[in-house]
């Protein structure tokens, strides 16, 4: 792979030589959409690494930029710095054992990952989930969506310059941590949902905690909207940069708030509703411009919609079991395990082999995670371990769009653009 003399002389890789040469070669071969005067004697292109360790890349994302002054002529993304191969691990774990790993993929909203895996396994193993468990899952998913958008908001506005905003959003997020701590056991990577239902019930004081928080957070949101929506600096910083048209967005495979910002109301909670999303009414916020500001508006309105969903869930939730009591498919409840022989045997069998979907069956189930469409494709071979478990991670597809929108932008805009797309590297690198 010999490089053109322009770059070959400058490159002295000390590690991963073949990898570095391959990526710099593909950077050179990439045709640029920016009109650059080649014959301009003063045109000096600098290749810069906005590398894996950078405050603005929200994790370990490496963007190689070819700059002409402040303008990006060409850019190339290099991901995989957080790749640990959980699909390979999934093939050696039972479905329930694999669930804590899903907490650590999209670690900004762990609850919705758990629900994604459990609903996929329930679909393939045909398990009926009791109603109360579905409502608890919806409340958990919406709280996770708000907590993920909170961290997105805090870091994106901090990247644009308002550092105090990070402290406000994190104060709200700490309250959410307390709620999750109360009903799930851990601050944010709670593995709370089980195959066939949820681990434990909502105690009355957790319900009160959530309701107080929802009332208080609504006032906070109104304050933030007033502060940011008309803010001149934030407005100019995000207007008309990284614009994606609707066709381009669909063609690149965007999903979630980034796609809804281009005008397509593709929301899985409306298209094929899982849990009880069809009995709860909420709107899907969309925008038309498709630039960074539109993504900001979409996510802010999504937070208000999530609050509405949580309130409606509390009204519709009735007393009832929180886990299906079919011993072959779900964990028996703890008191059954302690006081009955069959319960203990079922508990042991569930931990040992786990739920066994029919052999040769393969199916796909996707939920609307805060970042986009998060889907699990499971191929089962009849044992407790999946033969193949594919995770359709939304950040992986959203990051692909970053390469298209960065060409021709200014260097300073990359910071806000990465914040606007909100990729999570644990999710995209699998």
């Amino acid at each position, binding site marked *: 792979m010999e490089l053109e003399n322009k770059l070959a002389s400058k490159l002295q890789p000390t590690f*991963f030589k073949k990898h570095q040469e391959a990526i710099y070669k593909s950077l050179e071969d990439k045709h640029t959409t920016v009109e650059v005067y080649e014959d301009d004697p003063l045109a000096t292109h600098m290749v810069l690494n906005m590398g894996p360790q950078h405050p603005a890349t929200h994790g370990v994302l490496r963007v190689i930029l070819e700059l002409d002054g402040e303008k990006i002529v060409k850019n190339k993304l290099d991901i995989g710095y957080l*790749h640990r191969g959980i699909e390979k*691990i999934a093939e050696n774990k039972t479905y329930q054992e694999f669930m804590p790993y899903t907490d650590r993929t999209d*670690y900004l909203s762990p609850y919705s990952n758990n629900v994604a895996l459990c609903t996929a396994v329930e679909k393939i193993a045909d398990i009926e989930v009791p109603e109360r468990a579905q409502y608890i899952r919806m409340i958990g998913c919406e709280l996770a969506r708000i907590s993920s958008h909170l961290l997105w908001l805090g870091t994106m506005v901090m990247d644009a310059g308002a550092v105090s905003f990070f402290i406000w959003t994190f104060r709200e997020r700490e309250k959410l941590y307390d709620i999750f701590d109360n009903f799930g056991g851990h*601050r944010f990577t709670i593995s709370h949902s089980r195959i066939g239902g949820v681990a434990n019930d909502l105690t009355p004081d957790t319900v009160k905690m959530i309701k107080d928080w929802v009332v208080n957070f609504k006032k906070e949101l109104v304050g933030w909207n007033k502060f940011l929506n008309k803010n001149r600096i934030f407005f100019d910083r995000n207007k008309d940069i990284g614009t994606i048209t609707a066709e381009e967005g669909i063609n690149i495979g965007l999903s979630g708030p980034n796609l809804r910002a281009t005008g397509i109301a593709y929301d899985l909670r409306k298209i094929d509703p899982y849990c009880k999303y069809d009995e709860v009414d909420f709107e899907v916020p969309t925008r038309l411009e498709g630039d960074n500001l539109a993504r900001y508006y979409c996510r802010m309105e999504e937070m208000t919609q999530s609050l509405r969903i949580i309130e409606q869930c509390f009204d519709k939730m009735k007393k009832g079991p929180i886990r299906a009591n079919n011993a072959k498919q779900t964990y028996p409840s703890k008191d059954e395990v302690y006081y009955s022989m069959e319960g203990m045997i079922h508990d042991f069998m569930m931990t040992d082999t786990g739920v066994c979907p029919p052999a040769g069956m393969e199916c796909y189930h996707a939920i609307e995670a805060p970042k986009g469409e998060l889907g699990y494709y499971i191929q089962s071979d009849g044992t407790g371990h999946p033969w193949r478990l594919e995770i359709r991670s939304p950040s992986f597809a959203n990051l692909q769009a970053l390469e298209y929108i960065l060409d021709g932008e200014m260097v300073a805009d990359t910071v806000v653009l990465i914040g606007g797309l909100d990729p999570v590297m644990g999710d995209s690198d699998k």
Partner: protein
Amino acid sequence: MGLESALGEGFLTTRVDSLVNWARSNAVWPMPMGLACCAIEMMAFAGPKYDVSRFGSEVFRFSPRQSDLMIVAGWCTYKMSHAIRRIWDQMPDPKWCVAMGACASTGGMHRCYGVVQGVDNFLPVDAYISGCPPRPDAVINALMKIQDKIKTEHSVLLDT
């Protein structure tokens, strides 16, 4: 140092030692090598509730040139290990390293091909924090251990 002989054996260095170590331990600027979910807990550790600026290390410097304590938060893959080692080499010298979380300390729950089983395979780690992710007060506890280490073990004599 030439001053040493003038003032008698050990008098100066103990006084200067305590002064320098006191200054260094109360201004440990962390270099947040935030990789995965532990990075979110590290943000909470610097956030409003578990405010770490009470301990003097509120300034989260992202450039290795201005930081003393590298907190490796999250699982470190083979591909990322070279970048972490490069950042560690480029930090100025009185530097310490904390492996935050089970994944950084021993590879944690990720027993697979991509993850280096423990950051101490290529980094001199001073403090390990268990937990997945550890609560912010556990990270503050590790920071206090690093501060004790600075106060007791490090002497200016070693530096020249």
